[in-house]
């Protein structure tokens, strides 16, 4: 199953979810109705005009007008509550993490456990080609648990509990984080958000019930119907909760198995995640959370966050046995084990054999999307290691991180650079310029392959800027880019990436999927591929061949479209093409990224320029693009 199929499947799940939800709401409406009829019957002195001799004749229970009233009111409450919640959650993963009491981890943290966590998250992000998510810690929580949340990979966060940090070794933590990345890659997060929204709508009924109950007068002569109504609402709310639990568990359990399996696949280290699960089993608090919001979000977590009849997660023993079939089911030995447990690297359940080579094969780019291979993780560890420590330190706070990005844009040419800085002084504060120049000294000699990873690493920290600071930062970027009057490929890619990744967290908006087929976009596709072919192949005839080969991958016959002349397409056109493809269905994205990959890999080499443009395309399309690994030492990010 590839990335695109998983995305589609997650969408189908959403439809199923809505269907179950409608069923639940119908049930609730009927229940509310029954209670109200009962109350009227009880307190109308058994002589209510409309309900004479109720109970003998079942048909007299039906009062269309009342049913309509009840149905309307209940529907309004539930739907209204859901919509309010979903709109709130659309603000992204940070919102969810913060309402659960999370605190973002600063990557300059001195706490070794937090540092370890941030490193693991960064490695996994670079390896899988998704934006580096913001790492959060749920500080007050001692249970071992974790979650990933966000509306799209661009505003994703990965959060772990304090217990997770304290009790898990690096390998185990990596297993847990890989599990969460699988949720990000499989499109589970959006499904989760919808689920939370619908559930909180249902749960509002209980809340209203308890408010009514508390506010109703206590005196004996008061109005018992009001009290009874409150009580009934609470009970119905609980029935609703009961049904929601069923929905939650139905949707969530299968996806947990999938995420566990992906975790093993990403790290090729089954003992990591297996031991993490065993520690949960052996730990008295297990994975239980304290926060009161845990129940409506419980399906989001790594392991059950609340004790409930309907488990959102498969039992631990079952999960462990799927990874480690020989597990005895005895957690006793894991009770006292702390983080020093050293797991052995055994490929007892490697999904891909240990000796397998990942060749760069254009046919696989789209197929492998959303999959992480241990080689990728290894590669990203090396990559992160080759970044100078001073720069890493700078990137740990927003001031330094914005300075890194600005430094990336500084021209090599001394005169040009002076000009750029002069322009920058009009906009940015003196301290930013000072830091930019400091960083420029360190990174000017750096391999150009490292430029984009630097940008990637800076992004999560940049999200900590206030909106006013972000606006200023964008201005600074524009000024640097425009000061020489030319737009280079790198500048274009950087702007694209900033726009697609940061803009999303400051101005979250759901991307509409306007284009269902590639046919109306054939000119855009031709422009994009022509640009890639032009950038990547110095020889005109090779470029033409690469273009032709790539266009063949597009099922719609391209014959009728543009004359295939490879020229330097303007960035305007490229930008427009990218934004069109960003607003298309996963299937269309798959076709275009596959064609792009064929164009780039036509000559079996990936130049830095090609990699940069392809990355900018993939990021803007919200597609995870793992680093290119070649058999030689030269790797392209």
């Amino acid at each position, binding site marked *: 199953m590839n990335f695109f199929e998983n995305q589609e499947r997650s969408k189908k799940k959403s439809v199923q979810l809505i269907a179950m939800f409608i069923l639940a709401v119908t049930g609730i409406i009927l229940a509310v109705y029954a209670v109200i009829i009962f109350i009227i019957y009880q307190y109308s002195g058994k002589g209510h005009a409309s309900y004479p001799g109720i109970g003998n004749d079942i048909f007299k229970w039906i009062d269309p007008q009342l049913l309509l*009233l009840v149905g*309307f*009111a209940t529907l*309004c*409450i539930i739907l*209204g*509550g859901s919509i*309010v919640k979903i709109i*709130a959650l659309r*603000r992204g993963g940070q*919102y969810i993490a*913060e*309402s659960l*009491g999370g*605190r*973002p981890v*600063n990557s*300059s*943290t001195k706490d070794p456990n937090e540092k370890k966590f941030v490193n693991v998250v960064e490695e996994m992000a670079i390896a899988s080609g998704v934006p580096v998510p913001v790492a959060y810690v749920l500080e007050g929580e001692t249970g071992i648990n974790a979650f990933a949340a966000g509306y799209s990979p661009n505003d994703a966060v990965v959060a772990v509990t304090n217990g997770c940090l304290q009790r898990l070794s690096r390998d185990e933590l990596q297993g847990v984080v890989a599990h969460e990345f699988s949720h990000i890659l499989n499109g589970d997060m959006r499904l989760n958000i919808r689920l939370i929204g619908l559930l909180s709508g249902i749960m*509002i009924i209980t809340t*209203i019930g308890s408010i009514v109950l508390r506010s109703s007068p206590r005196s004996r002569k008061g109005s018992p119907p009001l009290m009874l109504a409150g009580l009934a609402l609470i009970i119905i709310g609980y029935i609703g909760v009961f049904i929601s639990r069923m929905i939650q568990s139905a949707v969530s359990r299968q996806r947990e198995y999938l995420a566990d399996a992906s975790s093993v696949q990403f790290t090729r280290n089954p003992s990591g995640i297996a031991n993490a699960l065993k520690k949960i089993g052996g730990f008295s608090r297990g994975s239980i959370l304290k926060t009161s919001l845990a129940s409506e979000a419980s399906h989001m977590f790594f392991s059950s966050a609340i004790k409930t009849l309907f488990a959102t997660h498969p039992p631990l023993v079952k999960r462990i046995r799927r990874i480690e079939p020989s597990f005895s089911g005895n957690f006793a030995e894991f009770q006292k084990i702390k983080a020093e447990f050293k797991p052995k690297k055994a490929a007892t359940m490697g999904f891909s054999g240990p000796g397998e080579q990942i060749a760069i094969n254009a046919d696989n780019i789209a197929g492998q999307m959303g999959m992480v291979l241990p080689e990728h993780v290894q590669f990203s560890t090396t990559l992160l290691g080759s970044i100078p420590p001073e720069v890493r330190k700078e990137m740990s*706070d*927003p*001031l*330094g991180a914005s300075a890194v990005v600005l430094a990336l844009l500084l021209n090599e040419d001394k005169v040009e650079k002076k000009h750029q800085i002069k322009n920058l002084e009009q906009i940015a504060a003196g*301290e*930013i310029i*000072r*830091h930019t120049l400091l960083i420029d000294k360190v990174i000017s000699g750096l391999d150009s392959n490292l430029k984009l990873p630097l940008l990637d690493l800076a992004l999560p920290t940049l999200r*900590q*800027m*206030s*909106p*006013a*600071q972000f606006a200023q930062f964008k201005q600074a970027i524009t000024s640097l880019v425009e000061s020489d009057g030319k737009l280079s490929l790198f500048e274009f890619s950087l702007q694209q990436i900033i726009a697609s990744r940061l803009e999303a967290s400051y101005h979250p908006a759901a991307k509409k999927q306007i284009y269902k087929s590639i046919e109306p976009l054939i000119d855009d596709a031709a422009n994009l591929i022509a640009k890639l072919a032009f950038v990547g192949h110095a020889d005109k005839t090779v470029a033409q061949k690469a273009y032709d080969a790539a266009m063949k991958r597009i099922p719609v016959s391209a014959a009728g479209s543009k004359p295939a002349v490879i020229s330097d397409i303007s960035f305007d056109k490229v930008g427009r093409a990218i934004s069109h493809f960003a607003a298309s269905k996963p299937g269309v994205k798959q076709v275009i990224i596959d064609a792009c990959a064929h164009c780039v890999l036509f000559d079996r080499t990936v130049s830095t320029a090609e990699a940069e443009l392809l990355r900018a395309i993939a990021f803007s399309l919200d597609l995870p693009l793992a680093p290119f690994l070649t058999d030689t030492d030269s790797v392209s990010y």
Partner: protein
Amino acid sequence: MTAIIILGIIIAIVLAVIAIYNRLVTQRNRYKNAFSQIDVQLKRRYDLIPNLVEVVKGYMKHERETLEAVIQARNSAVNASRQASGNPGDPGAMKNLNAAEGMLSGALGRLFALSESYPDLKANQNMMQLQEELSSTENRISFARQAFNDAVMAYNISREKFPNTIIAGMFNFTEAQLLESTETPEERKAPKVSF
């Protein structure tokens, strides 16, 4: 029909209350998180100061008072920041932090001004490094403070708006205090003086 309308109004009110409440909670968490950014940098500065004093001590034998003032100011700033990080935005705690930070900046400023007359100290490699670290931390603090103040401002504005102000009153969303820049213009210059 009237029943439907009344019910509809009640429901709308309840939903609005919930939405406003949630928004206020998130904004409060946001500025609290923004404070933790400042906190990291403040801690870094507090860690640097003892090293600075250690280096300076060797050269400035006759300036014990100034050094002690720096240490004292640093210690009270550490306390104030601990209090503030427990409850960021709390007017009392923030005012204490403002005052303590002002004292510390002043004491550091005097120390740097004095060090002008010790050429050996000026040439000391460690001293130069610490100086650089301190001023860089200073910059980070001011950047983080800006973000914090933006977040506090957004929260305060949103809690004062109608009808949010009613809900804020009901659920005890108190006004948050901005963290002012503690440095007067000349103090601001002081730690940045290059030798």
